[in-house]
């Protein structure tokens, strides 16, 4: 049993815009690249060229089809990684204290030297956001690129998680969700950002911005106010044209 801090100084996290995410997997692979080379053991791939390749990824995109009753179906791309919950069940379940939530910024991490690979945390996480590395046998999860965001060896503008830096559509935002005046908090406010599965009581820090309503061009609106006809055959059109040209 590991304790969570009562409070964290900051609540660093991601705000992910489901209206803009095109499901391109750029964030998934950039994350894999950075985190293979950095924090802890590499993110490995078992059967990398074989029948059932299984690699560890800290961030994955799931695609869901939504079929409203009165509108055409559509796809929602849903990127998912650790949500750095305030009430993180993966931490409290950890028998060795390897899983912990940082006091200074609220990032949930696994101290790999203390991880015995028991997998309890992955069972406890309602989001399925932790993955046991298939080769290294150590629990892997999103670090919010803790080795980027404070890294003085990177230019200041690059001190963001690699998924945020790389996202082509700008669908990922990083900041302090504990500060109501931060850009990310304002974005959540403006766009009605929500928690994932709030009923779980995990109090996730990461927020999702919902897709805007789709298919608003109403099938039944035949008024088409900007299509008031000027003519429906050539002669009428040319008469209109002459009058209109005179005004130019």
């Amino acid at each position, binding site marked *: 049993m*590991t304790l969570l801090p009562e409070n964290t100084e900051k609540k660093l996290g991601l705000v992910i815009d489901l*209206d803009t995410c*095109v*499901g*391109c997997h*750029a964030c*998934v*692979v950039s994350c894999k690249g950075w985190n293979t*080379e*950095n924090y802890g053991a*590499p993110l*490995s*791939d*078992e*059967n*990398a*060229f074989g*029948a059932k*390749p299984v*690699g560890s990824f800290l961030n994955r995109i799931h695609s869901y089809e939504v079929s409203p009753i009165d509108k055409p*179906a*559509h*796809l929602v791309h849903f990127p998912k990684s650790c949500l750095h919950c305030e009430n993180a069940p993966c931490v409290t379940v950890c028998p060795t204290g390897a899983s*912990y939530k*940082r*006091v200074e910024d609220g990032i949930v*991490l696994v101290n790999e030297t*203390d991880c015995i690979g028991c997998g309890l945390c992955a069972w406890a996480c309602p989001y399925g956001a932790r993955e046991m590395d298939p*080769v*290294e046998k150590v629990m892997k999860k999103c670090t919010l690129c*803790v*080795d980027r965001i*404070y*890294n003085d*060896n990177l230019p200041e503008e690059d001190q963001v998680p*690699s998924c945020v*830096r*790389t*996202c*082509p*559509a*700008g669908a990922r935002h990083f900041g302090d969700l504990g500060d109501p005046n931060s850009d990310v908090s304002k974005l959540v406010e403006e766009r009605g950002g929500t928690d994932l599965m709030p009923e779980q009581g995990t109090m996730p820090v990461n927020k999702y911005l919902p897709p805007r309503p789709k298919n608003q*061009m*109403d*099938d039944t609106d035949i008024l*088409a*106010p*900007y*299509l008031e*006809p*000027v*003519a*429906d*055959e*050539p002669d009428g*059109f040319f008469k209109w044209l*002459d009058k*209109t*040209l005179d005004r*130019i």
Partner: protein
Amino acid sequence: MKDQPYLETSPKVSDEVKQTTCYMCACRCGINVHLKDGKVSYIEGNKDHPVNQGVLCAKGSAGIMQVNAPSRLDSPMIRVGPRGSGEFKKISWDEALNLAVEWLKPLRIKAPEKLAFFTGRDQSQSFTSYFAQMFGTPNYAAHGGFCSVNMATAGIYTMGGAFWEFGQPDWDYTKLFILFGVAEDHDSNPIKMGIGKIKERGAKIVGVNPIRTGYNAVADEWLGVTPGTDGLLILSLINVLIKAGKIDLEYLAKYTNAPVFIDPESGLILRDKNDKPLVKDRITGKICAFDTKGIYPDLNATYKARDVTSNTVFHAIIKKYISPEYDPEKVANVCGISAPKIRALANEIARVAFEEEFQLPIEWTDFRGEKHTSMKGRPVSFHSMRGISAHSNGFQTCRALHILQILLGTVEVPGGFRFKPPYPKPSSIHPKPHFKVTPNAPLDGPHLGFVHGPEDLALDENGKPVRIDKAFSWENPMSAHGLMHMVISNAYAGDPYKIDTLFMYMANMSWNSSMNTSGVMKMLTDKDKKGDYVIPRIIYSDAYSSEMVAYADLILPDTTYLERHDCISLLDRPISEADGAADAIRWPVIEPDRDVRGFQSVLIDLGARLGLPGFINEDGSAKYKDYADYIVNHLRKPDIGPLAGFRGDGSAVGRGDVNPKQLESYIENGGFYVAHIPEGAKYFKPWNNAYQKWAVDLGLYDTPMPYIFNLYSEPMRKFQLAAEGFGEHQPPDHLRDQLKSVMSPLPIWYSNEGDLEENTKYPIHALTQRPMAMYHSWGSQNAWLRQIHGLNPLYVPTKIMKEHNLKTGDWVKLSSSHNTIIVPVAEMASLNENTVWTWNAIGKRKGAWALDPNAPEATKGFLLNHLIHELQPARGDGLRWSNSDPVTGQAAWFDLKVKLEKATAPEESQPSFDEIKSPVGTGPKNISWKVRN
């Protein structure tokens, strides 16, 4: 609570960062390659680069797995087993190049056309075509013919450029962005960045596409159009907009050929003695050349001379498109879009284009000398690529889309569509096709170009096609990118003649880049009566153990993209932005650890060994050491070379002497160069004096080239005239009717489907697309990317799933008029209800790409290509028509119609093929490593 463990939050990132250009797809983004101990450790986007501004897609970030891929070829090889077996012997580069010379030299001396040199996903076409030209063969092209030649060509003939490399939406100001047929591709990062940017502003995105994935998934509105009917939908939008008077009359009068007179007898454009199109000035009533200073061309004019009254192009347009045949109610069923929805879209276009008109306070002067105090904007933009192109009615559909933009007055205006230098460029200043073969001498000019009438076709004195792919023939006159998909079948058939050596680069013709894949494998392995291969010799260059390797006789192994020099040139397929001309390089940020060489350097060597002009000095010695040397020192014209930046003493741009330190300057500058367009020259480029001057200074034009857009295409009318029996160049009789119809000088729509019997038998449309994480990628076997897309079920709409009592995971027998495949299915609701589709090129041949033969790509993966024949089904007229667009020869991949039946699950997708022997073995079981210092 115990103390938190110590954490190093500022670890050293890498030893050094080298900036080069990505090649994981065709976008050519700038990348920062981090190196530790000389090895690639991490790849990220280059923030200063004009294409991607720091972002990078999944493919780009997975480059490290490509550079380390076990499928990399490691040595030149010669085939020792039968073709297709994959049995090779490693040989030295000297042996390989000597053999190539032994094969090619006699051809050059006697019959250069016996070499067919086709490069697939080539990004160095201005160089590879130069090699082919100096060799003297007319048989050269890259992959455009089976990609998007319809879009490119329709754009160039109509307005001097098309989408993607030619231009882009004005992401800063557009408020309505309409995508036709673009799902996940062309181009990659810039579209995603643009979508993100306009969404932030609350702009609306409309997707017109049978499949609602990718960009269509985030579109605000979706029109799930029936494949192949986009042209009709567009003409219906035009019909509605014309009837409402919602077209930009001033724009049409000033910047297009709408006010130009058409001779009613010939259908040709009336011209003055200097060959300039004639218009009537609405101010003075005078008939004069279109570019006369100070005139206001009259859209509504008539011109009477010798009892013949000529009307304007605009009259012809109105008469044609106001016709009730294009009423939304008439087209709704065919397009699969309700009439109210078509009107709703037209209404939204009209509202945004005309109610949200705005002005940018930028002064400019047009080519007639008129001074404008501001730039008028219309914030509606379009984008489209392969989806509407790859149909047999694709050219006219693409023309229709370009015409729609022009009628709205949204091309080259703020908020609309903007060209990227070197475009806009009038079609008339592009080269014409060159095809005159002289043994032991170069071809008479560049191969590919734009025909302007029957006299420009690549035909011999008997009217027979000169090119092996029959490009620029009556069957497909405007085939500006060639027809790579016809090369093997024509060479096999000896039609129009037999060839000796097929030389290919990065073109997976025995797999996913061919129609009729099984047939092509047979053509490549078939022998004649004497026991010789029907296609006698095949040379192939690839960096990886692709399916095509097994079908070649001589393999010239290429490097990966981080081990080579390359040049992304303004002479070629540029990477410019609407605000500037840009070019870039690749350079070896790591050295190859195998016996491989960059293909372009190999061609430089081969060219010298063959003694080709342009590749040797007067004394016969090699002119260039390697491709890098060529990039710096080659001059295409005086003062103009492959790279525009840092010329002369390093400060010259565009025009200037050779600068021996040019590559160093590019490397210092991040691997690219941008020449920014001045503020007053950024819009209205074809007519803007300031832009014209800038383009001449940069060397894009030799003199100012203002021109008007061709709503009416006179070159097309010339082909129609020939088909009607006029002129000295006459088509064969069996093609007359086709030419009369498809060469319509104003866009038309015609059905791309077969006859009623065929349609009843094969009622379902079948499409392919590539996923974003693999679009235009040579790396779908990549260890990371294959975990994202390792399977390609056939996606089937709910209606058809129910009809056939199918559930996801079941298997179906999918048949076309040509062939049958058996494949797994998955249900998808957000899909046109009569369309099925799958991801292309996920399926792999056993033994290729260093994958385990049990990899899902090889056991469950499949290609729709088996169902698509390069010829259309026999129609009882004794002829077999090519499965291509009759205007350009573009491969009509997306015309495929199928039927579907539930099948018992086979062990593997059918057809399945024997394992080919891998020249590189199989990849390691696990990957688990870091690059450590």
